[in-house]
């Protein structure tokens, strides 16, 4: 692996890992709202949560630019606070995470909907308040789904190209994740070999994430048994 490839690999790991980990709690909140709350306009919120999925990534990147760019309403605020997103690896995470977000919400939501409400009720009767129930019953029971959400969020963020390059551009060592490197390689006639190698690295990362998730699931099942 060349130094540049190693850098892209490392950066991808950071960018996608951060996107998945930061995205998960947000996805839980969003999934909770659409799965558990009933209010007018719920379907609209649900649809908006799907927006990054149905829009071309470039458009999402562009929208992020409008919002989080130094001229954008949020970006201007962050800029004052000394936080820069455009052209930074944090920005790459934001873009990749935004694209992965609908998938994470979906996975969490499916998991939440599969939790037996009678068990939450039972916990309530045993004195557990909302947050207590959430953290001791609902989320642990939904854990396989949460891990699925992490895996899919990580995988999608790992593969995200259009939104990242539009929002964060390709700054080697900062925002040049594996997909950007693969894309670069492929655009150059004869770059197939490099692209293939980078693609295999991406896939290995995904395999590693899957194995990790399965190990986590098993560990969780064991933990409950011993405690």
């Amino acid at each position, binding site marked *: 692996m060349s130094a540049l490839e190693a850098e892209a690999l490392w950066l991808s790991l950071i960018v996608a890992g951060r996107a998945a980990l930061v995205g998960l709690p947000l996805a839980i909140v969003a999934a909770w709202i659409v799965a558990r709350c009933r209010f007018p306009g719920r379907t609209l919120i649900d649809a908006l949560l799907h927006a990054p999925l149905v829009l071309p990534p470039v458009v999402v990147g562009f929208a992020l630019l409008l919002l989080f760019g130094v001229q954008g309403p949020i970006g201007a605020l962050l800029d004052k606070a000394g936080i820069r997103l455009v052209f930074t690896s944090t920005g790459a995470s934001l873009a990749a995470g935004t694209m992965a977000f609908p998938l994470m919400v979906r996975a969490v939501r499916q998991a939440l909907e599969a939790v037996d409400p009678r068990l939450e009720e039972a916990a309530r*009767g*045993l004195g*557990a308040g909302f947050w207590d129930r959430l953290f001791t019953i609902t989320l642990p029971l939904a854990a396989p789904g949460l891990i699925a959400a992490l895996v899919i969020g990580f995988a999608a963020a790992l593969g995200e190209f259009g939104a990242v390059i539009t929002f964060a551009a390709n700054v080697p060592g900062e925002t040049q994740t594996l997909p950007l490197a693969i894309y670069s390689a492929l655009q150059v006639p004869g770059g197939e070999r490099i692209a293939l190698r980078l693609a295999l690295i991406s896939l290995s990362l995904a395999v590693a994430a899957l194995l990790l998730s399965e190990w986590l699931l098993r560990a969780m099942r064991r933990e*409950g048994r011993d405690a």
Partner: protein
Amino acid sequence: MLDVAIRRRLGGFALEAAFTAPSDGVTALFGPSGAGKSSILAAIAGPTTGEGHVRLDGRDLLALPPERRRIGIVHQDSRLFPHMTVERNLRYGLRRSDRSGIGFDEVVEVLAIAPLLSRRPATLSGGERQRAAIGRALLSQPDLLLMDEPLAALDGGRKAEILPFLETLKARFRLPILYVTHHVGEARRLADHVVLIAEGRVVAEGGPELLAGAEGEVVGVEGDLVTIRVSGPLPRPGSHVTLT
């Protein structure tokens, strides 16, 4: 005193039950399958939705969210937390209570669940599951205990062990218990007060004598003839009886 008045609609079923129960005894809810017994317990312990009140010594429990009502409930299906060991299930309510009258070891011993503590509910037998659920409810140190056919899945021996424990419990902690059962003997043994339910309504309320059937003490045995001093209604001559 426990003063219950509940009004609910469940699909095509109308529940409209009001009764009172002594605050330190066992009140048996008795009635045919589908009469509304489990629904009454659910209305007392669950989220407040319909009309009515559940006053325990004057305070209306329905004014509190379920998690602050201090009601222990044993459901007809055990509802153990599948992702926790039996021990963590038992300690779940215990940990969330600021009292400690009912001890972990005592409950584990009486319910004979020590060998199960490290197991997951999915691997338990029906009776084992039910015992764990009883333990969990007891250990939450409730002010009011609701039990829905808690012993139905247990064998006679186990029942005979748990019943006296429940009796001690009510004596020691002056805990009102609402007890749903289909078993006349069980009810008569435990109950201080009986509420008969049918089609969602209370049809009668009174002492254990309300229950048909009889129990007594064997006073003489001669050949295959057994003489019993009976309390409660007397069986008719010629009728077929089972002694348990």
